[in-house]
């Protein structure tokens, strides 16, 4: 196998694995929900992207053609992940989950919950 492709694929795979793992570590480690929300939305999505690209490269190489359908999953994840995150944030606002002490603009959470403009806007 072409060493270069192997190298790239390996690197992508490792990167993907690491980001996926990081996303999940962050999910467990972060002190409040909103902070936990960040890591899977970003890290996991990126990790997935990396793995999918590796997948694409490797499959294309192995089959000798162009394998691009993994791209679909990637696009799909990039479209849906932020929406999921937003829905979750919305849910968290609604349920008034605990916000880490010392967070800034904690009052905005209440305003956001009611979908009102921030108080300083009036």
């Amino acid at each position: 196998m072409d060493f270069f492709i192997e190298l790239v694929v390996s690197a992508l795979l490792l990167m993907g694995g690491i980001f996926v793992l990081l996303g999940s570590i962050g999910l467990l480690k972060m002190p409040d929900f909103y902070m936990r929300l960040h890591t899977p939305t970003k890290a996991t999505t990126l990790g997935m992207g990396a793995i999918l690209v590796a997948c694409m490269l490797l499959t294309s190489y192995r089959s000798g053609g162009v394998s691009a359908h993994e791209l679909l999953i990637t696009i799909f994840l990039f479209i849906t992940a932020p929406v999921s995150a937003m829905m979750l944030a919305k849910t968290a606002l609604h349920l008034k989950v605990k916000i880490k002490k010392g967070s800034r603009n904690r009052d905005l959470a209440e305003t956001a919950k009611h979908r009102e403009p921030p108080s300083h806007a009036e």
Partner: protein
Amino acid sequence: MHILFPMPWQSIVLFTVWLLLNESIAPGHLVLAAFLAIGIPQLLRGTQDHPFRIQKPMLAVMYALKVLGDIVSANFEVAVQVLGPSKRLQPGFLAIPLDITGDFPITLLASTISLTPGTVSAEVSSDQKWLYVHALHLVDETASIREIKKRYEQPLKEIFGC
């Protein structure tokens, strides 16, 4: 034309996706793809409440690439934040005043913000004038807002002309 392609962008996407799915540009698939690209939008006529028009396609591509880059670079930042002690983080909420209008552009902006580092969109105010965002490490509130507006909202406003 409008009858055949009520939503041209949708048809293009469907056409492309079909070929991607089948990983083939064989004539048979092209025919099938064309058929589906016409047929499905016809079938779903009226189910798209948020029509949009892309005024500047090239800019859109640029925007996508920029966001992609931001995602990659930003993630390393997040990696550090995750691995490092979280006590040092200073999270907080932001309320970003919106200049763009329309469901689709706002959705796109919110999604971009969520994907890019440090911020997650949380809620849109019911009048669609404010976007609430949670930031993982909020140092300068106004600077962050300005950065977001400039980096993401502005291009979107141009792309969709809204």
